């Protein structure tokens, strides 16, 4: 495992995983802005991640793209790379690096639970596991997202003269919320903030069931009574949200577990819907991977490092620059 440093850089072959600054060769785990950046020479990722990067940054956001299918091998010198489903968002992948019989897995952001909007997480056995720890505290035990989305549907039924604005990150979370609504037979048109449009169209094209959606337009105020509107969290508190009739502000995020956080952000209806693993899933993955060496990246790493050490696993935090925690999910 000495071949990779704390910045997820393999010096030997000049390959970075999810680098923040433009690099020669970048393996990208998924399309979120804190992992996928503009300006690399060569991007290696799943086809869907590459599509998403092009949608967000333009066709020329890298000089060269190499799309990999899940499980398809890509070798540089004696390093064999394969990508495997991470269950985080559409196209998200874990990176397995094999070198001289040593197996190293970088989970990227991952979620163990079921999700119809992407391929489900695949557990990989390995020697070294580099895991994320966004929700690395025992207070985070995500409830069933079905129950959470039912809360939204119930509230829409009860509060007929309000509209519900759901804050959800533009890539992945927004479409997941839409898909969950469809799974629960909510068949009305869902209204979306303009910044979500391209990505929603892409999800539809990829045959993810997010149902009928329409961009919010300057219609009569009362038109949105009883409707569900999905917007990026930053829009909730902006002038954009003033146009709606008696909005009930909702937020779909793992952080909504903590009432005080919801209250501070002025969220009236918190929906605990996360695209990351919760505490128990993190522990379970660590255990089942059989890895003896655990490195922990961005999030609440302290508690997880403490736990691993108690299990006699070699464990330390990796501090990767440029990752914000609560803003992104």
């Amino acid at each position, binding site marked *: 495992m000495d071949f990779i440093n704390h910045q997820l850089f393999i010096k030997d072959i000049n390959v970075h995983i999810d680098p923040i600054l433009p690099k020669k060769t970048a393996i990208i785990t998924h399309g979120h802005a804190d992992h996928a950046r503009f300006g690399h020479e060569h991007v290696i990722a799943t086809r869907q991640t590459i599509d998403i990067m092009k949608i967000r940054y333009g066709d020329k956001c890298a000089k060269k793209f190499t799309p990999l299918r899940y499980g398809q091998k890509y070798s540089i010198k004696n390093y064999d790379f394969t990508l495997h489903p991470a269950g985080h968002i559409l196209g998200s992948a874990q990176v397995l690096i094999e070198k001289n019989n040593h197996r190293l897995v970088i989970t990227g952001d991952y979620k163990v639970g079921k999700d119809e909007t992407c391929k489900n997480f695949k557990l990989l056995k390995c020697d070294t596991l580099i895991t994320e720890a966004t929700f690395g*505290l*025992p*207070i*985070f*035990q995500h409830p069933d997202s079905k129950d959470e989305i039912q809360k939204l549907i119930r509230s829409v039924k009860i509060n007929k003269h309000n509209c519900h604005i759901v804050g959800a990150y533009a890539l992945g979370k927004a479409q997941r919320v839409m898909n969950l609504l469809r799974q629960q037979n909510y068949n009305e048109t869902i209204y979306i903030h303009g910044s979500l449009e391209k990505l929603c169209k892409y999800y539809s094209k990829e045959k993810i069931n997010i149902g009928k959606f329409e961009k919010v337009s300057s219609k009569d105020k009362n038109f949105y009574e009883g409707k569900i509107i999905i917007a990026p969290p930053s829009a909730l*508190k*902006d*002038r954009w*949200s*003033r146009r709606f009739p008696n909005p009930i502000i909702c937020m779909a995020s793992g952080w909504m*577990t*903590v*009432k*005080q956080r*919801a*209250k501070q952000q*002025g*969220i*009236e*209806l*918190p929906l605990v819907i996360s695209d990351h693993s919760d505490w128990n899933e993190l522990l379970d993955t660590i255990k089942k991977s059989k890895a003896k060496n655990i490195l922990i990246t961005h999030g*609440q790493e*302290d*508690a997880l490092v*403490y*736990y691993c050490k*108690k299990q006699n696993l070699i464990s330390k935090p990796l501090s990767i620059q440029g990752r914000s925690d609560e803003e992104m999910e």
Partner: protein
Amino acid sequence: MKKFSSLLHNLILTPSRNTKIKLLQDYFKKLDINSAYALAILSDQLSFQFIKASKLRELVYEHVDQHLFDFSYDYVGDLAETISLIWPTKKEGKSQSLSTLIENINKIKKSEINTEFSKILSQLSNNERWTLIKMCTGGLRIGVSERLVKTALADLYNKSINEIEEIWHGLKFPYENLFQWLRNEIPKPKIDFKKLFHPMMLANPIDEEKDFKRLNASEFQAEYKWDGIRVQLMVSSKSVSLYSRTGDNISSAFPEIIENTKGDAVIDGELLVGTNFKPSNFNDLQQRLNRKKASKDLQEKFPVFIRAYDILFYNGKDLRKLFLFERRMYLEKFLKENITNQIDLSSIIKFSTWKELTKYKNNFNDHLNEGVMIKLKNSQYLPGRKKGYWYKWKKNPKLVDAILMYAQRGHGKRSSYYSDFTFGVWKKNELVPIGKAYSGYTDKELLILDKFIRNNTTNKFGPVREVKKEIILEVAFDDVFPSNRHKSGVAMRFPRIHRIRWDKPINEVVSIEEFKKEFKIG
């Protein structure tokens, strides 16, 4: 328990007062033993003998690794919420009613507390667990005042809030008499008032244009409106207690009053800081507020006294049905009989026309009063803010033109607007902030200011935006005091935005020295 815990959950998350009232009303549609417990909890009347915060910590350490708990508590910052989320064994049992749950807890023997209470915690959902722990630690902090609960009940059952206020302090769990009265099954409960806090009579602001034309000056009595805190002092041969306007017992914070008062009466007055009955400013009084106890040192530095306005009981006799001028005679009598350094009489201002009163309102010793009170001589002592009896007439506000320096988003309804403004005056070539205001502007002015701030931000400090120094605000304020907490050396009382001064260039704004001189700050 499910129902009550989701009530609390919704109350904590909704910013709207009306929604809160609606939620409370939905809950209190049924008046049974569960709603009685709920009412006791919401008014902070319920506690468990053996289960306090320290016991809860002890319990959680028995079940959760201490370090993992500490990491989590650090992150969440709220004990009840951390425990409710981290609690490991979750075998959600059959849902119990609030009353069954509380009664079961009260049955637990002290020696079995740890195992039995843990069992209960394990059977609850996260939200129920959070609610129960909040109930144990007291002080819900869910943004619901006692007053709001009373308002909800009054509206729901077509009673007046004053009637509820009147009997509130005589009510006890399980509130059978209250509930029966709300349901119109019995007349209003009769309460033995002698030892209870009596809701205070409050004044309405006067409408100078309408009211002075309508009201006959000779029917009214005027007194200064002192800038302290309104209190009710209950004296009897057995005990002396002091209550705040909201009915909180604040006796322990003002021992000198308690120790030195004699007689048998209930007095309505203003608590002030000062020696020889000379009140000093509100800033000094603040040193004595929000403290549970007062050290000897504090008592010497900031001695308090009560300026008496009114009397409700005298030697066991209820005077509240008498008229003000009659009660006044009893008040004077009581004070003559029981002379102390702790109570004096609020003097009456002699005037014959409203015009004559104006000069008393505005020109009396600057920092000490907020204006005058105008009271109908023939007024009974009526709880609450009844119209037509007592009026307050505040001094004209002081005004200063200051430059808008920083802005921050508001809360609740205003969270999408930059609506909290910090403004300042010159100190040589720099600006120094003198205050912060978040009211007073019109909706239209707010939109203009909001837009200006978005387009003219020069710097960001977390949520605070620094803006181009271009906008001059005329700020109205009640008073200003010296303060060593602020860089400018001054602290304003109730500043608000009066208007935007589009006509004035920023170099015509005063300096801090001129400001202090104008408002006589040393």
